[in-house]
């Protein structure tokens, strides 16, 4: 379980987090939603210790990650996989080299086994043919899938996704969403997904947490959007829907119409 307690973070004169508190339960997929610049990625970086809070703490299975040594933190990070927004693939390596990198670095497995496992990870994200290609020769969606394959090679307990569908076309976005669901189900991974794409939220998440003004303003099951009367949440959901302008794809939690009433993502009625 991951817990963030009362996180505060300031960059210069800008207060990004002003008391964010969050709990991620084992086995669930939590979507952290919010407007651009609301601090979603900053919060994500705190969860893996890439940023240190000015105040507050992050607990991973009860361990305060900011109170332990750097060596201990590095060991603890083996439980995490992170999919960065642009993929963060190493330019000098092929797709296979990228996926094999954690195995070559952290395991003593023979090269044949490393290659087999890397190819298996690429197959899992449906990218068998891209093994010899360099990142520059891959599309945006392929780069993210290679990065996802790299993130799962060491079989992490937690997978963190930073805007996994950002900048992708709807079909590729759906492919990524399917992969997130498959990995969560097949590998029993706890997933935290940063996004402002409500279609993705409904397709993959069990719960959502809305970050607003530096705090977790609302959190709950994605199926509870419709029952909520929180104006900030409803504004976010409606703005997202209008921006997209098309009905959501088949979702994990939301129907498109209920009792003949036209509804937005998550069953939120049109205002």
């Amino acid at each position, binding site marked *: 379980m991951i817990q963030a307690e009362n996180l505060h973070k300031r960059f210069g004169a800008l207060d990004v987090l002003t008391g964010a508190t969050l709990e991620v339960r084992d086995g669930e997929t939590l979507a952290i939603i919010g407007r651009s610049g609301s601090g979603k990625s900053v919060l994500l970086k705190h969860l893996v210790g890439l940023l240190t809070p000015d105040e507050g703490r992050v607990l991973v299975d009860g361990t305060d990650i900011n109170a332990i040594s750097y060596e201990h933190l*590095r060991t603890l*990070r083996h439980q995490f996989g992170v999919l960065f927004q642009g993929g*963060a693939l190493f330019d000098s390596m092929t797709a296979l080299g990228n996926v094999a990198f954690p195995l070559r670095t952290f395991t003593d497995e023979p090269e044949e086994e490393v290659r087999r496992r890397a190819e298996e990870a690429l197959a899992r994200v449906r990218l068998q043919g891209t093994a010899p290609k360099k990142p520059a020769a891959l599309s945006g969606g392929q780069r993210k899938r290679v990065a996802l394959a790299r993130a799962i090679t*060491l079989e992490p307990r937690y997978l963190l996704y930073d805007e996994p569908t950002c900048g992708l076309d709807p079909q590729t976005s759906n492919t990524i969403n399917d992969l997130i669901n498959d990995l969560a189900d097949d590998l029993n991974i706890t997933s935290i997904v940063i996004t402002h794409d409500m279609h993705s939220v409904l397709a993959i998440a069990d719960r959502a947490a809305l970050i607003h003004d530096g705090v977790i303003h609302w959190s709950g099951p994605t199926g509870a959007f419709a029952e909520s009367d929180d104006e900030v949440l409803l504004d976010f959901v409606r703005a997202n829907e209008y921006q997209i302008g098309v009905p959501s794809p088949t979702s994990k939690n939301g129907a498109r119409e209920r009792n003949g009433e036209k509804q937005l993502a998550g069953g939120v009625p049109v205002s």
Partner: protein
Amino acid sequence: MAALTRRLLRPVHTLGKFVMLMAQAVSSIGEVSMYRKNLISQMTKIGIESLPIVSLAAFFSGAVMTVQTAYQMTGPFVPKSVIGSIVAPTMILELGVVGMAFVLAGRVGARIAAELGTMRVSDQIDALEVMGLNSVAYLILPRVLAGVIMFPVLYVAACTIGVGGGIVAADVGGYLSAEAFVQGAQMYFNPFDPFFGLIKAFVFGFLITSISCYKGYYTSGGAEGVGDATTEAAVASCVFMLFADLLLAAAFL
């Protein structure tokens, strides 16, 4: 007032951050398996691949200095062999190492800053950290170690080729024979000079690679930030190198 104080304290903050980064790098020196492969690769890039441009710069420095010294030695009472006495120690004490370091500040320093800066702005450094890798041991330590190992090697090559350039220019230009040049070079040769040059090469190797690593590692602001970091790395390396040159001369000579 607070803004002014912040601005005044910025150099202290930068120095502290630099010292902390280098301390982290040095404390990771035991993690050999983390940087061994990268160290060899960086020694090749910094040392072997820089050899052609360093050789070219050294050869022409030695040759031009010989021609210019000969041009100034017009008096009938000064033996021509003095040209060797001037060119060789100058190459060994100053031009061989400083000239080489200027070339390498551009070639090596800018490349390191651009490479690490790009890795930073594209989240590759964060990706390494999240995997549980010590990014300082993996990226910075091998580059700084390669610098302090290979700069003295390049210095020896630069001095040899620079003096050789002087001999060729003297001989081909008809100013004095190769034997006379060597005789002049030996006349005032001080065994401490090449040792001092090696010390300078070691220090310059550390300054150029560490400053460039620092600039690249803490890059922010996308492509523009990478450009700024690259320029700042080359400029700061040259400035600190000149200060170090003066301090070392005052301390050892």
